[in-house]
């Protein structure tokens, strides 16, 4: 196992940030911690990267214990925190050189590993890190986290606040790093990114709700989901919520995801109900379950 976490808990005064969490990440796996702000993702990262002690439980990373062998862990992992934490008044090149030196290596020695990513910011290597755009900062931070060729890479919300195009590019980079044999633990509040991981843990309020491959998690969703649409979205939501047999009603892009309490639900009946409530251009069809549906069901 590349990462093994057993029953760890962490509280800050009255708040239980992480509550009896256990999971394992295999070597070479791309594992996602999926959950909103405040779920406890960052606290887990900080305990695994030896920056914070757990109150209870044990954990190993790359075979080393997070408490006893903290020095080995620091040499063997790369960590990209959620908040940009490079030196703003050093240039791109100086930052990278600094991190390489700290870890007793050089940019040249491991250039192959970061090449893909670094070439995109190399034209700006004389620019101060503080003056980079968000996307470029992210690429520099990733390069710095990789420069000592870590076995395990920790990425805490690398794509939060990033636009869809840059997010897509970032995940393509992660896939390439995974192919080079690096184990990756990544956290994200974007549910659509969950489907790009090998396995995921859904997490909320410091508790893990479910761990599995995205495909298995979707398979275990207990209900059939219907896409419903009509001309006035706001009124449609109101009407669906007043339908006595509704189980869940969630806006989902151009549709509303509807589930019914009954197993023998007939969409025809809902169609009639909506028509009777003056809705125009009603469409109802069965749709695919997403991780987001599952997450909402588990946190309902």
């Amino acid at each position, binding site marked *: 196992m590349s990462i093994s976490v057993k029953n760890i808990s962490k509280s800050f005064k009255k708040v239980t940030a992480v509550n009896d969490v256990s999971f394992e990440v295999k070597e070479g796996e791309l594992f996602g911690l999926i*959950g*909103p*702000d*405040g*779920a406890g993702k960052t606290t887990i990262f900080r305990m695994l990267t030896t920056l914070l002690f757990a109150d209870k439980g044990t954990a190993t990373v790359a075979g080393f214990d997070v408490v006893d062998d903290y020095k080995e862990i620091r040499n063997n992992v790369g960590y990209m925190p959620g908040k940009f934490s490079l030196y703003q008044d050093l240039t791109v090149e100086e930052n990278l050189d600094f991190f390489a030196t700290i870890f007793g290596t050089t940019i040249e020695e491991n250039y192959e590993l970061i090449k893909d990513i670094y070439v995109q910011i190399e034209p700006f290597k004389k620019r101060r890190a503080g003056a980079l*755009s*968000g*996307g470029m900062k992210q690429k520099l931070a990733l390069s710095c986290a990789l420069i000592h060729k870590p076995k395990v890479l920790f990425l805490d*919300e690398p794509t*939060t*606040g*990033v*636009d*869809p*195009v*840059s*997010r*897509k590019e970032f995940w393509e980079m992660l896939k390439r790093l995974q192919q080079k044999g690096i184990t990756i633990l990544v956290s994200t*509040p*974007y*549910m659509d990114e969950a489907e790009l991981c090998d396995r995921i843990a859904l997490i*909320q309020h410091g508790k893990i709700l479910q761990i599995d491959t995205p495909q298995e998690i979707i398979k275990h969703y207990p209900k059939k989901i219907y896409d419903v649409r009509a001309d006035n*979205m*706001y009124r449609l*939501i109101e009407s669906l919520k007043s339908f006595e047999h509704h189980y869940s009603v*969630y*806006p*989902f*892009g*151009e549709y509303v995801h509807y589930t019914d309490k009954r197993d023998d639900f007939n969409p025809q009946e809902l169609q009639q109900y909506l028509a009777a409530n003056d809705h125009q251009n009603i469409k109802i069809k069965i749709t695919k379950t997403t991780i*987001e549906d599952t*997450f*909402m069901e588990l*946190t*309902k």
Partner: protein
Amino acid sequence: MKNNNVIEVENLTKKFGDFTAVNSITFEVKKGEIFGFLGANGAGKTTAMKMLIGISKPTSGKAQVAGFNVFTQPEDIKKNIGYMSQKFALYDDLTVKENITFFGGIYGLSRAKIKEKRSELVEELGLGDIVNELVGSLPLGWKQKISFSIALLHSPTIVFLDEPTGGVDPITRRQFWEMIYKSANSGTTIFVTTHYMDEAEYCDRVSIMVDGKIEALDTPKKLKEHYKADNMNEVFLKLARG
């Protein structure tokens, strides 16, 4: 301004030295509309929004917001709009009640009015239990719902929302959008930026900025037809990098 436009922008431009952050954008937003303002990071959204809310002076062009000119009446604009961002939400070390009172005061509401609005808010959002809690101790989703309501305290014509749902859990994110629908339904104009493309589908019309220009502007349905895409995410991916 034409009858029911809340925003009218014509060739609005902002330059920083040699760099053109916003390059001659033109658009209108109607009363009660939910207008999605999309674009990649660095495309110029924030700069454009700052001009519209009266805190950054345009280099050239024309713009009217809530009936006021961005060049000559920025103070009137500020009084007549609501604004909320992901970063600056509320004062963490004030209670929910104190935050409402404080912002009510800032917007120049009378004490009686603040009291009335406060009770309305507590009722509507079900804040009874937490009204005396420090805002800092609340989950992000709650903070965002409260700050949206606070942005509406003074009944503005239009409210600007800058990535209001980033990092918020999926259920609260949807409750937030139901609040948006509700206020749009009662006539408030909504101007919103987001990186969630499913949320772009909730907008009446969407504009997509690329390198300082508005490259596309239409209803989500028409944009999808035009770019032969199944959803707004595909539209965005097709446009945002040329």
